[in-house]
């Protein structure tokens, strides 16, 4: 087990990167603490796998340092870093049996036979691989292959960390859920640092204590699932986390607040000062669909909207509303009446977030 620290790390696949767009990972620093269960969440191509390969040592970063427990390991091979990694597509040694596959990393480390047997059987039991334990790995199903692939990472209990690169992509949904629970159990049992790469927010929030959201080669937010949901500090996090994502509306500055179309939103004095100081014209207001209050009668702080679409998702409804010519989505409970052609919405002040240049302006900064 180790604390993994990334220090001003950047990576480009081209030899002479011309600009920021040539970087798969833009300069950033980050710490994965000892024994944590983390998820690295982001869309395809945002640099998640690149970062994982840099941590494991399959890839040497073009700039910056990787530190394990404050020791620089840039030049160490994965072997010497003692790190386990599970790949998106299962890699199995098909000339060996399942048992030999699982025992392979332990045998390579020269562990005694008796210990290997105990450990392999323990992991095989957790992953429910016992029925095929002495079969050749060649004839396994895709699910079983991925379990073997994962098992090879899990048998090593002395590793610095286990990295998972979208390990459940090829596995069917029901088993997916089960395996995720298993991983969580294994984490609780052995307390190994785990980093789990995924593009599925549900997967991330069920597995991890803390989620790092990656976008455009950088970690834009690192926090608990709740923090990511309640105060996304980048518009991308707002949009990517949650279903549907955060409503984002471009606004313009005005005395004492911001305005879009006919709607004026008053802001505190300090926030206004802050906007003034930054002087950027890229201002956005964001609010989660869950926090929008929808009623059928008008009051002082409501805005009238035309109902464009109602999606009934069983336990809740997603209402698509037109506020002027802006599209706003709201999530309302199943029993709320949404039959009317127009509805009235209110934006509770505490859930209304202001973004300048795509980054959240913290309320505490006021």
């Amino acid at each position, binding site marked *: 087990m180790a604390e993994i620290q990334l220090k001003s790390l950047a990576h480009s696949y081209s030899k002479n990167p011309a600009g920021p767009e040539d970087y798969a990972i833009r300069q950033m620093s980050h710490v994965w603490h000892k024994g944590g269960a983390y998820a690295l969440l982001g869309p395809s191509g945002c640099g998640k796998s690149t970062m994982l390969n840099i941590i494991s040592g399959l890839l040497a970063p073009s700039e910056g340092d990787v530190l394990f427990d404050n020791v620089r390991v840039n030049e160490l091979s994965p072997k010497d870093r003692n790190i386990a990694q599970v790949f998106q597509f299962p*890699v199995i040694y098909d*000339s060996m049996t399942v048992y030999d596959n699982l025992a392979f990393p332990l045998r*390579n*480390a020269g562990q005694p036979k008796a210990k290997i047997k105990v450990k392999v059987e323990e992991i095989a039991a957790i992953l429910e691989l016992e029925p095929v334990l002495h079969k*050749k790995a060649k004839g396994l199903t895709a699910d079983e292959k991925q379990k073997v692939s994962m098992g*090879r*990472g899990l048998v090593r209990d002395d590793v610095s960390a286990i990295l998972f690169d979208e390990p459940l992509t090829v596995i069917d949904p029901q088993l997916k859920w089960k395996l995720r629970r298993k991983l969580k159990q294994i984490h609780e049992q052995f307390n190994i640092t785990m980093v789990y790469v995924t593009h599925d927010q549900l997967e991330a929030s069920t597995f991890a204590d803390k989620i790092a959201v990656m976008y455009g080669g950088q970690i834009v937010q690192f926090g608990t699932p709740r923090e990511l949901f309640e105060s996304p500090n980048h518009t991308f996090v707002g949009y990517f986390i949650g279903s549907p994502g955060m409503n984002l509306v471009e606004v313009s500055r005005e005395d004492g607040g911001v305005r879009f179309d006919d709607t004026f939103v008053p802001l505190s004095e300090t926030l206004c000062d802050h906007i003034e100081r930054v002087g950027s014209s890229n201002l956005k207001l964001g609010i989660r669909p869950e926090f929008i209050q929808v009623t059928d009668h008008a009051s002082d702080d409501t805005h009238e909207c035309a109902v464009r679409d109602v999606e009934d998702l069983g336990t809740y409804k997603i209402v698509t509303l037109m506020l002027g010519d802006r599209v706003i989505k709201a999530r309302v409970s199943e029993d709320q009446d949404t039959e009317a052609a127009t509805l009235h919405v209110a934006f509770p002040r505490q859930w209304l977030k202001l973004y300048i240049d795509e980054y959240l302006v913290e309320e505490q900064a006021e």
Partner: protein
Amino acid sequence: MNKIADNRAWWLVLPVFILVAFSALIPLMTVVNYSVQDIFGPGSAYFVGTEWFEEVLGSDRLQDSLGRQFLFSGAVLAIQIPLGIGIALMMPTTGKRASLCLILLAIPLLIPWNVVGTIWQIFGRGDIGLFGWGLNQLGMDYNYTSSTVDAWLTVLLMDVWHWTPLVALLCYSGLRAIPEAFYQAAEIDRASNWAIFRYIQLPRLKSVLVIAVLLRFMDSFMIYTEPFVLTGGGPGSSTTFLSQTLTTMAIGQFDIGRAAAFSLIYFLIVLLVSWLFFTAITHLDRQK
């Protein structure tokens, strides 16, 4: 659906049948026909049954050259297969150096058999050949025309030089077909180079190795030109292999019946051993 049986469709198979008949069946049957007769000249042939087979199988000449042949093919496989794998593992994988290596390796394969024999005949001479002269200068008493051991070593060395590249090229292509993910996984699993070779590379080379072993066995078992040019089968009959014995019998002595029986036995041995190799290697897999 009703299928209409139309036996005229069989005519479509006729071209293949004719082709195979002329290329394989008729010549083979002619040999079978010769092997059971004693032919003195046109019009005077006598049916002798299995007499030729019994005589050939019992003859010292066949048994000796058969023994030599197995020894030679065994040595060829024992040297060339591991050496070929080794060369393939050491070759660069990308870039100009890889192309250069491939070209250098392919050169011996492009040289005609009798030219290979001639090259080594001159190369090994003690007076003007670099190899023979060099060995003699180093104080070794090397002469492939008079010493059985030297003759054997030279023939073996020549074959290794000529054909190891084939094994190496086959293995090289097999190694390139292994996805990078396996090496990454092995690295993560802390596999030593030996473990990577033993558990990842070797199992995935199996199919090309089956081809390499079969090709090298058949070719070396039927070797004729190179030792014939190099040593003429000598000294004595120490490097006289099966095909040369057969040629001497069929052409030199014009003993058609005996040569035909010999050919059939020869053919059956090659077939049998190739089948054994193939079955053994492909069955290794299904043991578990």
